[in-house]
């Protein structure tokens, strides 16, 4: 799911009342786990709210709404935002350059891709691809490893990520799994290599 698709989505109680809408995503940790959402009011009450929605209180995140059991699950905005990380995969990455660890520039991040299940976390980026990818400068999706290095300057991905680039979201889930499996395989064989020192 593209992060932008979640913005403005209504927050609806199981009783069928819309109590807020999503303003922004609060990320935590290096892997870019979704810690929660800041909120705007609805309709006449538009504008930022003092309350926020912690991820633990999300009952369901669907195509059309974010469901919660009731209004009482909202927390103070400051409490939720305190858990956020400025760095990490979900931080302020839009516009950052993606570099492979072999030193090739792959493109610029235009969108954050989330996987949503029991937890929600950043699993990839949509990038305006560089020539190196041979995609004629089109937007493509690039999978992320479980952990990665991010700075304000660039974001470093393993060179193998290039092999798992996809053009659209269908099939991207499988690409992430295959990419991460490959990385684990490599780690495994590296640790078994004879004569290697830490």
């Amino acid at each position, binding site marked *: 799911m593209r992060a932008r698709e979640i913005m403005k*989505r*209504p927050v*609806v*109680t*199981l*009783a*069928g*009342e*819309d109590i807020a809408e999503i303003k922004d995503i609060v990320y935590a940790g290096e892997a870019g786990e979704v810690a929660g959402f800041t909120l705007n009011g609805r309709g006449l009450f538009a504008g930022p709210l003092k309350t926020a929605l912690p991820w633990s209180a999300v*009952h*369901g*995140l*669907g*195509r*059309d*709404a*974010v*469901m919660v059991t009731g209004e009482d699950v909202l927390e103070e905005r400051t409490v939720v935002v305190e858990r956020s990380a400025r760095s990490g995969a979900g931080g302020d990455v839009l516009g950052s350059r993606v570099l492979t660890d072999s030193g090739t520039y792959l493109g610029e991040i235009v969108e954050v891709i989330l996987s949503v299940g029991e937890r929600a976390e950043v699993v990839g980026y949509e990038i305006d691809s560089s020539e190196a990818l041979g995609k004629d400068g089109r937007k493509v999706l690039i999978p992320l490893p479980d952990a990665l290095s991010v700075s304000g300057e660039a974001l470093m991905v393993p060179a193998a990520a290039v092999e798992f680039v996809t053009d659209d979201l269908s099939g991207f889930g499988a690409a992430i799994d295959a990419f991460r499996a490959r990385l684990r395989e490599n780690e495994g064989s590296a640790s078994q290599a004879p004569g290697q020192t830490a």
Partner: protein
Amino acid sequence: MRFSEADGRKVVSTSTATTIAKVAGFAVDPSTQQVVALHLKKTDGDADTVLWSALTAFGVDAVTVAGPDVFVVAEGETAVLLDKHHSVKGKRVLTEGGDDLGKVEDLEFDAGTGSVTLLITKTEEIAGKRLTGVGSYAVVVRHA
């Protein structure tokens, strides 16, 4: 029976055999998935609600009641369920997972018990027992 068929149906007094009102709306309690009251029009006076429990029968051709004495002014929970913000018909259906299933075009209920048996959208027929919330924004249903 569907709401669309039942809407506008005559409400007849069993004591005088005269039409004393017409059905104008339905209050559905999402916690029990039951029609708990009918909103009435063309009544003689302010009392424009009849509780399901006060009906003699919801018949094929008419709703029967003992007489106009059973009509009440809706209050409390019933008034909330009867207000226009809580009408089920025309409202979007959301699953508890946050997916939109379309707007409710009609409902089917058991005329004997008042149980809502189906919510009908353009593309789906949703079992009434999945109903969990009826709010001003949406009707919420559990996963099938």
